[in-house]
């Protein structure tokens, strides 16, 4: 068996740091697009953050959105081309801080889009500041003494929050820290796209991700840190799945 680049990825070289999860997740998204044969009718929305250059990496039509607004932009595209597949690719700062309103409302509208949500508990592109998902006590550039819950509040558990909304068809948290988890992540992403094709409504796959550069850890240690710290706070699992029910549209 030959290990090849998925067609839905361009041949541009990723700019991501060694050990960053973006490369794996990009590949999983591209594999799902290939397997479903939908590249020609897919639109991706790149958001602000490290993954903004996703428009260089995916072979489907791509648009770059303002910070936090990816799901509003995706809504506009989807309303014009309801038959097309529309996905956003967003980090935790983009989705759960500046874009919280756009996220919650796209979800509650049941907007028939797929959201790939990279949760690495930090702002990567700007150099490692506190994110809405930064863990209590976690040291970042703007929480130099560790995130104080008293001053900075609590992290947001996005899948748990969104699973309360009626418009959500799938909310699942996965990780790409091991072969087993990568496979599970792939299945979740593919399922999200399938649900969109079936018109079931809003789908979100949250991927617990590493940022060795801004965490100040080696690649190996960052995987351990994710397992020991992020997974207990952000348990992997399916938070909502309307799979057994009738399609909503």
């Amino acid at each position: 068996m030959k290990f090849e680049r998925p067609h839905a990825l361009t041949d541009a070289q990723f700019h991501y740091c060694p050990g960053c999860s973006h490369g794996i997740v990009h590949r999983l998204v591209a594999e799902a697009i290939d397997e479903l044969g939908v590249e020609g009718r897919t639109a991706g929305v790149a958001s602000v953050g490290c993954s903004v250059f996703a428009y260089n990496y995916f072979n489907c039509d791509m648009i770059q959105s303002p910070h936090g607004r990816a799901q509003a932009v995706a809504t506009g595209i989807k309303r014009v081309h309801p038959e097309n597949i529309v996905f956003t690719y967003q980090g935790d700062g983009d989705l759960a801080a500046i874009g919280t309103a756009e996220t919650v409302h796209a979800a509650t509208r049941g907007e028939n889009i797929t959201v790939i949500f990279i949760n690495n508990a930090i702002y990567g592109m700007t150099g490692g500041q506190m994110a809405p998902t930064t863990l209590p006590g976690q040291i970042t550039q703007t929480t130099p003494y560790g995130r104080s819950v008293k001053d900075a509040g609590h992290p947001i558990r996005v899948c748990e929050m969104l699973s309360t909304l009626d418009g959500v068809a799938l909310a699942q948290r996965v990780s790409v820290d091991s072969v087993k988890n990568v496979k599970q992540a792939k299945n979740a992403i593919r399922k999200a796209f399938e649900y969109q094709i079936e018109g079931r409504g809003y789908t979100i796959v949250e991927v617990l991700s590493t940022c060795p550069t801004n965490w100040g850890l080696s690649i190996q240690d960052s995987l351990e840190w994710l397992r020991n710290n992020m997974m207990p706070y952000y348990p992997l699992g399916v938070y909502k799945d309307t799979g057994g029910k009738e399609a909503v549209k």
Partner: protein
Amino acid sequence: MPEKVLMKGNEALAEAAIMAGCRYFFGYPITPQTEVAMHMSKRMPKVGGVYLQAESEVAAINMVLGASAAGARAMTSSSSPGISLKSEGLSYIAGSDVPAVIANVQRAGPGLGGIQPSQADYFQATRAAGHGDFKMLVLAPSTVQEIIDLVADAFALGDEYRMPVMILSDGLLGQMMEPVVIDETKKINIPERPWAISGHENKRKHNVVNSLYIEPPDLEAILKARYEKYELIKKKEQRCEEYMTDDAEIVVVAYGASARISRSAVDAARKDGIKAGLIRLITLWPYPDDAIISRMATAKAFLCVEMSMGQMVDDVRLIVGGKRDVRFFGRTGGMIPTPAEVLREIKNIKGGF
């Protein structure tokens, strides 16, 4: 010949957009533009279009970015405080070379200001609609009929130049009713958008709609090319209406609601033997520089009348360059100037000759 119907400015604005082929409207309630959204919510489902009430003006303008980038004629409308929220999206739309139509039914500011008519968003519309180097075409109707005509032009111009176009209305024009002719037989030509995010169907290279250019030489080159386009627009698209300016010694310059008032004042001045005239601006950007320059032949003074503390007057000062007297008269905060007040200003200027 289509018959005349009575329409409110805001409803006319919405209906004209539908006639121009706009099928995607993203709105958010705010006085005094809410009738635009109300009309769209009623009409869009009837014409196979989409009315979507967004969670905020910020979301609405970004939905316009998405829908327009996807290849469709799309618009949003708001009033002054809401337009401030849209400024981020306007900058991205301009930076991504995406057409869009945005209506601002102006009310008084700053802050929550008031809900009465105003023209205090002139600087925002023509100078600083958002961050960075960019321009929007800005069209200023002064009657309900002209709202209809300019909305059609706005969509056409947006497509032609791939840029945002603002209809700068105000609470007075939005709320007033006037008889209008809606010509439904008029053919609309919506050009193809080969650059759109519509799915490449394995027939072309993937399209990218983007405003990010991380290499400074690339971004500078893009901006310079865009400004060449703006220069072309300045040459081709300046529009205004002149009234009794041929021999005018006092040229009143105004747009929108204040131009209607100024016209009555010019009539009254003429009755009193004063050689007054009016340049009514239709495009605010590009500014009709040429009309001002040509009127300098007879004009001893220009009088700018605005519903603001004085914004558009700066453009006249820049064009005239100190060679003629440039005066300003304005009411603001939702107050509307009267013809008598404008006439008094004209007479004051005349007295100084």
